């Protein structure tokens, strides 16, 4: 049998590697075996090739050791030792892309260069000498179009060949003059260490000259050698009148400049696509129109996701679910199932499955549009336009889109944080998203404002949404000065030309998100719904109850009720409703209806008036706005932040914030009323 071949796919951020990965695997993925606590790699079997799998590494510009993400990527390459590297580069950003290529070539791993966007190069009559490029770099260079699925067959073929024959790049020398001397002397010095630790010699020498202490540590270099290396580096700095990092970057870019002059001949300064981008940007990042256009686009996507298109799909789906559930109900009755079993299946299992399924149409629609924004190149412009606002919160412009999605639903919003380049930004954004009031809380606000604030409904509604934003701003400010201290990650972002998204790539991206959601949410949401069903249907003696007042859930509600007395709503029915709200926020209202023995509507309004005053009703709404997110959201927090510890922290933190905010509302409000 053939040996397994692991292909590592790597390139600059947003160079199209996710698209290429999807084309290679057909969208079949599993969590990569190289995944660590800090980094999640995606791995999948390569289509039509047995025993070949591909790992998509996070995009990077350099193999340096400054950010957690970059260190993790480097570790995977150094310790995981994939059999072959596919380095995807954007041919239209040739110089910048090659900077990473030169570092990858030093790793002594077989390597293939995949040139994306070559069709654009040809369309612009730019002369690109592929043969020359292959000769100069001593590695195969394959033109591909990731979005149009062209050249990928060849690419895989060459990658497998290179892996089987273990053809490593022959050329690893890009330097001259003083840098050359310094690197070569270092290489002699550390040869034994590198051999002993199975580390690529040239890569280590270059990194040591850059002042990379992590490499020195992992090579176990001792004091006298460290001193000599330090001396070599400072000699080099002295001769070149620059520091070591500058010298190394300059060395690589000098080589790249010469290579580009040999390989690329172009007649014009900028390509047609770049000129088109400039024209489009005159409108989309215009001083006056940029922000209104962005808000308009987001509103349109929201409308399509949560009202028209998404809503129709949801209704169609829930109609189907209702009918299936009714059929199951009848079937069970006819089969003579016990009431407990019937209740478990209808109110437990079916309700759980139904609540997960009900998210899917919206997630699919939302990610369809977001993929279009992403693939078209509009996303980086959004970050460019909105950055200044977000910077004050210690975030960057990239966080704005996930935060806005949060007003629809936290689950896809948290999934959308994957596009953020730094872990710090990702975590901070995830912690703030649940404060954006999601659409599932809308029924609650609707019923409460109707019951208590008939005359000022719009005002009260706006006050609630505004409170959510205000709280997130305050929390962001506190986070910035406590746990997420330290310099914000540099906001340096490439603005690619606008491109027409390929439907297949958009479809695969959408499918990936939907599938990820189903996989994670099903288990967690499912179990949680069954637990809630169990608590609601049985009393402490495990007898099935018909009256919800005597269920275990009610006992827990009654037990928890005193906690809410300082907030003005110590009624056990309120606390019980809050607990059921964990399965889904819509459940708060329906539980109130069940517990007060009313149907939703005017009767419920009347009953609510006996439990709450307008002030406590407002405090209750504020608490609902801010308290711990629903289980589906928690499942996503766990997935994206990597552990229940984080999810529990988010849960506790938000409930505390909610308690404090409701306490302030009730007590300060009490002074005026």
């Amino acid at each position, binding site marked *: 049998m053939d040996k397994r071949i692991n292909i590592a796919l790597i390139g600059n951020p947003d160079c199209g590697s996710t698209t290429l990965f999807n084309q290679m695997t057909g969208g079949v993925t599993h969590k990569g075996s190289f995944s660590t606590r800090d980094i999640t790699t995606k791995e999948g079997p390569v289509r039509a090739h047995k025993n070949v799998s591909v790992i998509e590494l996070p995009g990077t510009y350099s193999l340096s050791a400054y950010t957690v993400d970059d260190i993790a990527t480097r570790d995977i390459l150094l310790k995981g030792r994939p059999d072959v590297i596919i380095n995807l580069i954007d041919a239209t950003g040739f110089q910048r892309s090659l900077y990473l290529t030169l570092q990858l070539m030093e790793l002594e791993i077989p390597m293939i260069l995949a040139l994306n966007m070559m069709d654009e190069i040809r369309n612009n009559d730019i002369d690109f000498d592929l043969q020359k490029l292959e000769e100069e770099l001593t590695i195969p260079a394959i033109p591909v179009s990731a979005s149009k699925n062209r050249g990928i067959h060849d690419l895989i073929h060459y990658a497998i060949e290179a892996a089987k024959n273990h053809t490593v790049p022959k050329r690893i020398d890009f330097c001259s003059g003083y840098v050359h001397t310094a690197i070569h002397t270092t290489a002699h010095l550390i040869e034994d260490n590198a051999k002993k630790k199975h580390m690529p010699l040239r890569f280590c020498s270059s990194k040591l000259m850059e002042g990379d202490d992590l490499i020195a540590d992992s090579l176990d270099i001792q004091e006298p050698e460290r001193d000599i290396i330090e001396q070599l580096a400072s000699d080099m700095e002295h001769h070149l009148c620059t520091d070591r990092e500058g010298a190394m970057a300059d060395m690589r870019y000098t080589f790249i400049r010469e290579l580009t002059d040999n390989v690329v001949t172009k007649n014009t300064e900028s390509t047609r696509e770049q000129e088109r981008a400039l024209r489009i940007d005159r409108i989309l990042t215009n001083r006056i129109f940029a922000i209104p256009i962005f808000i308009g686009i987001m509103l349109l996507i929201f409308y399509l996701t949560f009202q028209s298109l998404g809503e129709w799909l949801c209704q169609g789906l829930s109609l189907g679910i209702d009918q299936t559930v009714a059929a199951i109900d009848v079937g069970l009755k006819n089969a003579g199932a016990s009431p407990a079993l019937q209740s478990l299946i209808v109110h437990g299992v079916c309700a759980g499955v139904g609540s997960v399924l009900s998210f899917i149409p919206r997630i699919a629609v939302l990610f369809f549009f977001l993929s279009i924004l992403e693939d078209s190149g509009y996303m980086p412009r959004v970050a460019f336009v909105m950055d200044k606002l977000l910077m004050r919160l210690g975030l960057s412009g990239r966080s704005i889109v996930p935060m806005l999605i949060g007003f629809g639903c936290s689950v896809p919003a948290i999934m959308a944080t994957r596009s953020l380049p730094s872990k710090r930004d990702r975590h901070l954004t995830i912690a703030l998203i649940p404060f954006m009031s999601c659409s599932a809380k809308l029924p609650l606000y609707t019923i409460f404002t109707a019951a208590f604030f008939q005359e000022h409904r719009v005002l009260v509604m706006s006050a609630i949404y505004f409170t959510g934003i205000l709280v997130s701003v305050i929390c962001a400010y506190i986070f910035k000065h406590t746990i997420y201290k330290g310099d914000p990650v540099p906001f*340096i972002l490439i603005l690619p030309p606008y491109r027409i998204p390929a439907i297949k790539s958009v479809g695969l991206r959408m499918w990936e998100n939907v599938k990820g959601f189903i996989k994670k949410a099903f288990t967690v949401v499912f179990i949680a719904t069954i637990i809630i069903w169990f608590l609601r249907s049985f009393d402490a003696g495990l007898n099935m109850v018909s009256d919800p007042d005597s269920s275990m859930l009610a006992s827990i509600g009654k037990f928890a009720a005193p906690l809410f007395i300082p907030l003005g709503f110590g009624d056990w029915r309120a606390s019980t409703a809050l607990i059921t709200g964990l399965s889904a926020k819509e459940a708060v209202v329906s539980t109130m209806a069940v517990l007060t023995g009313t149907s939703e509507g005017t009767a419920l309004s009347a009953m609510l008036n006996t439990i709450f005053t307008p002030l406590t009703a407002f405090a209750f709404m504020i608490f609902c706005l801010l308290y711990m997110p629903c289980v589906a959201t928690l499942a996503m927090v766990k997935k994206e932040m990597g552990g229940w510890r984080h999810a529990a922290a988010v849960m506790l933190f938000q409930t505390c914030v909610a308690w404090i905010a409701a306490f302030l509302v009730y007590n300060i409000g009490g002074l005026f009323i």
Partner: protein
Amino acid sequence: MTLDKLPRGKKGVITAVKGKGALRKRLLDLGLTPGTAVMVRKVAPLGDPIEVSLRGFELSLRKSEAAHIEVEES
């Protein structure tokens, strides 16, 4: 002069990259090395960040970051 002070539409050549740590490394990695020609293409609607054109691509960076880059107007 530093890059953040370079007027819109003006071209310049990088003479030095100051600053330290991750930021400086990222700037160098992206090709903002001494001797590189740059042009300030645009300023974001809220006054920050700026869009810079270099080595055949467009880059967005904050003024505070651009302030580390010394340029000479050409």
